[in-house]
């Protein structure tokens, strides 16, 4: 085990090369609906329990099923009203279980990226070969069902090993060169995209995904009120939008159909979307588009600036 994952060097949030998003936008805004499948009776993992109750754990299973049966359409239509295309963090088994959902998102030109196969399977305890197998399976499944090269990863149930990101980048290269496996949502160290140092040196981007704005973290872990969640989203936006005048920022709202689409919560979410998309200098986009734009325009400058910053510190 390592003291530090080693993916990035320290880089202060001041005096960075200026990022300008397309059409002079100051803030790139994306929404990441997590569309997940939780198994009622998953195989046991020695390091993490899937459910708190003995089988059948219907409270946790039920509300997540609610997300797909009821919540999905509500969120999809809400995002559509504000011209937002979702960047879906997908349990790829959903392509088999609920192809209707995949079809209607694909029809809307939404992005699909890998969030593993089932959200009740964890990387803990897997061999490197097993982890590579699940990552490859998930990326190939997205390709098969949507035609998209999978650009991004949010590891299955946010479970990682020391090799997760290397494997994802390398399998992406095998499958589609630089068009697949070039960003991750797993790291929360910054409000701007940053280059990551991976085995093999692929140009690979860490996308700000925001655990703090994640509805499940807000509602289940921090247990905040729906209207307060809406206020937090607006406050987060206001600050990043203001800072974006200096250098472009990214705001992501990670959502779950079983949280944000509940009848008592949808209104607060919708009001925040209306507020955010009502500003002129916002690039309403997808994760892939931001990561690719950053990689093509700012990646190399960032790598140099980080090296310089740390060189100066060492000198």
């Amino acid at each position, binding site marked *: 085990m390592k003291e530090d994952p080693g993916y990035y060097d320290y880089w202060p949030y001041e005096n960075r090369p200026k990022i300008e998003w397309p059409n002079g936008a100051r803030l790139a805004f994306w929404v990441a609906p997590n569309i997940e*499948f939780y*198994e*009622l*009776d998953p*195989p046991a*993992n*020695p390091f993490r329990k899937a459910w*708190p*109750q*003995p*089988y*059948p*754990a*219907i*409270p946790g*299973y*039920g*509300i997540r*099923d*609610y997300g*797909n*049966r*009821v919540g*999905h*359409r*509500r969120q999809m239509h809400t995002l559509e009203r504000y011209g937002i295309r979702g960047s879906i963090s997908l349990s790829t*088994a959903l392509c*088999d*279980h*609920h*192809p*209707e*959902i995949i079809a209607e998102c694909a029809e809307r030109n939404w992005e699909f990226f890998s969030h593993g*196969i*089932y959200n009740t*399977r964890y990387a803990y*305890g*897997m*061999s490197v*070969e*097993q982890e590579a*197998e*699940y990552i490859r399976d998930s990326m190939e499944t997205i390709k098969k069902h949507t035609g998209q090269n999978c650009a991004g990863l949010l590891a299955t149930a946010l479970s990682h090993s020391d090799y997760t990101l290397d494997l994802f980048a390398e399998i992406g290269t095998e499958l589609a060169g630089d068009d697949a496996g070039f960003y991750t949502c797993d790291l929360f160290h910054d409000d701007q995209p940053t280059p990551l140092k991976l085995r093999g040196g692929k140009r690979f981007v860490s996308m700000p995904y925001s655990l703090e704005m994640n509805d499940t973290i807000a*509602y289940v872990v921090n*247990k905040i*009120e*729906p*209207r307060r969640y809406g206020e937090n989203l607006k406050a987060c936006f206001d600050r990043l939008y203001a800072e974006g005048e200096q250098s472009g920022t990214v705001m992501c709202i990670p959502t779950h159909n079983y949280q944000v689409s*509940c*009848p*008592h*919560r*949808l*209104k*607060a979410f919708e009001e925040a979307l209306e507020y955010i998309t009502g500003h002129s200098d916002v690039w309403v986009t997808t994760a892939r588009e931001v990561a690719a734009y950053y990689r093509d325009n700012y990646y190399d400058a960032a790598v140099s600036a980080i090296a310089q910053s740390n060189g100066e510190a060492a000198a």
Partner: protein
Amino acid sequence: MSLPDEYMQYPHRSYGMDHDRYDWSLLGDRKPVSWPGGAKLALWVNVSLQFFPLNQQGKPFPPPGGMTMPYPDLRHFTLRDYGNRVGIYRILNALDRYNVKATFAINGQLAERTPTLVQRIAERGDEILGHGWNMDSLHYGGMDPDEEQKLVQRSLNALRDATGQPVRGWLSPARNESEQTPELLAQDGIDYFCDWVNDDMPYPFRTANGELTSLPLSTELEDRFVVLNNQHSEQSWCEQLCDACDMLLDEAESQGGRILALSLHPWLIGQPHRIGKLEAALEYITSKAGIWSAGASEIVDTWREQQT
């Protein structure tokens, strides 16, 4: 290091659910449902009347709202008992004031412990649902099937004997079940149950002893979940109910009848500082056009008639 081969296999990775209890179905794809009188939103209030034993065993887990302190946890025992002595009568007044019908899910043991209360509910003519024996007699995976069968029978018999009602509906304590709970319920004359909170509308649920109707009783809007579990203010709970009412009414305009399922606990919302927020929510909801205040059986029957 590696995991067993089984961990990398996906035997249920195919169309539909990963079990055979019910079919996969997007709510928006179903035939719209009409409520009586052209109503848009059925308001279903369920009040759970519960007994939390002082000598809690907590098997396989302590029930929500149960004892938390070393024996004898007098504070929680009496605070829960308060609901059946005091809080429930405040709720009955609030329901009557806004002319709202409710159902009552009752632990079978209360028929023995508080027959006056059970009679009072029965005399109102309100529907009674089975709610297990007490809050420390959970139905859970791996429990002895014979023991569970007796538990279901004892719970239902106590309510049926005390009230003369058929008792068609069921809500498991903590909404927890074993592998065979649905079979046992179907076998014992239950025809709808409320434990699986995976939809906003009823849907058919398979058991080896015939079909049940699943009528989800929302956990996310429940007084206990919002105020005790989430630690939200009573005012916020009231706002959440109002926002849910607005959203569901709006959805019903284009998709057909919806249900606002409100789960209440007298030991929680029946406190003097909280009851006013229930009243405020009921006032708001009943002021809207298109509300149908209904019992669970009425909702289930109306829905079933339209499923052919």
